[in-house]
């Protein structure tokens, strides 16, 4: 029994520490409530899954229970309900937080090699293959 109590106590400690820095306000109205229009909600969901929660490591705002992520979901949903384009909302956030806030890859001055190198490698592989096959046929003839 003693042992069980200790284990339970240790288990509870896991949850106590992170809760200390939590606010006491209820979540924003649209943090956990879907939009009534399924088409708009789908749009919002798609955007929320590709926006980074700024407070938590490697989570989208759709995945995070941080209150700031909830406030971001509220903002995304209300702005989409008001007819704003999802990409305009993404651009608005990128203007404020940089590319860090978006999971959607963009071609920029810093990222273009990521897109160019695979193409270049494919091209080189093609040339090598073409020369080898070409040479092989030349020998066979």
């Amino acid at each position: 029994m003693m042992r069980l109590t200790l284990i339970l106590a240790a288990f509870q400690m896991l949850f106590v520490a992170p809760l200390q820095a939590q606010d006491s306000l209820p979540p924003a109205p649209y943090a956990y409530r879907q939009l009534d229009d399924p088409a708009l909600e789908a749009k919002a969901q798609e955007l929320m899954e590709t926006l980074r929660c700024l407070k938590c490591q490697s989570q989208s705002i759709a995945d995070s229970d941080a209150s700031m992520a909830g406030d971001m979901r509220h903002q995304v949903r209300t702005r989409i309900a008001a007819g704003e384009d999802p990409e305009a909302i993404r651009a608005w956030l990128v203007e404020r937080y940089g590319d860090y806030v978006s999971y959607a890859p963009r071609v920029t001055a810093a990222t273009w090699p990521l897109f160019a190198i695979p193409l270049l490698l494919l091209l080189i592989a093609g040339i090598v293959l073409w020369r080898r096959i070409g040479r092989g046929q030349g020998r066979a003839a």
Partner: protein
Amino acid sequence: MRRWTLWLPLALFTFFVGLAAYQLTQPKDEFVHSGMLGKPLPEFDMRPALEGMPGASLADFKDGQPKLLNIWASWCLPCIAEAPQLEALRAGGAQIVGIAVRDKPEDVSRFLETHGNPYARIGADDLSELQLAIGSSGVPETFVIDGNGVIVHQHIGDVRESDVPKLLEILQEAGQ
């Protein structure tokens, strides 16, 4: 095939190991910097975060006097560590407008009673709207705003003792 091409894979491998080792030794910037420096504050008008003090609006930042905009919350632990430095800033002539993020009036009052009140006014940002609009990603953060409501500087994290003179200097420059 020439001899030297045999060494190519090893050379490439060494290059990438070297690159990774170099990057690992470089200091990493963990902060998300706001892209709003040099841009004006958005329109906003907030209820007071507690009874007996004025709330905050854009008009408060457009009276020609540069100010500090302190994003904080009573539930934020580093904000307790920051409190004496904000008091030092106030004593040094800074006007500080507090923006309390997701906070209840009674919690704000209790925090100020315990840790002091350096604020001229405190607005309540219940949906983190102003915080998101100015590119702040956490509490506490302190922005320097010039007399026309333009964001001049962002300090991320709690203000330490050594940051006080620098913030006062930036505030003074913003007033010129």
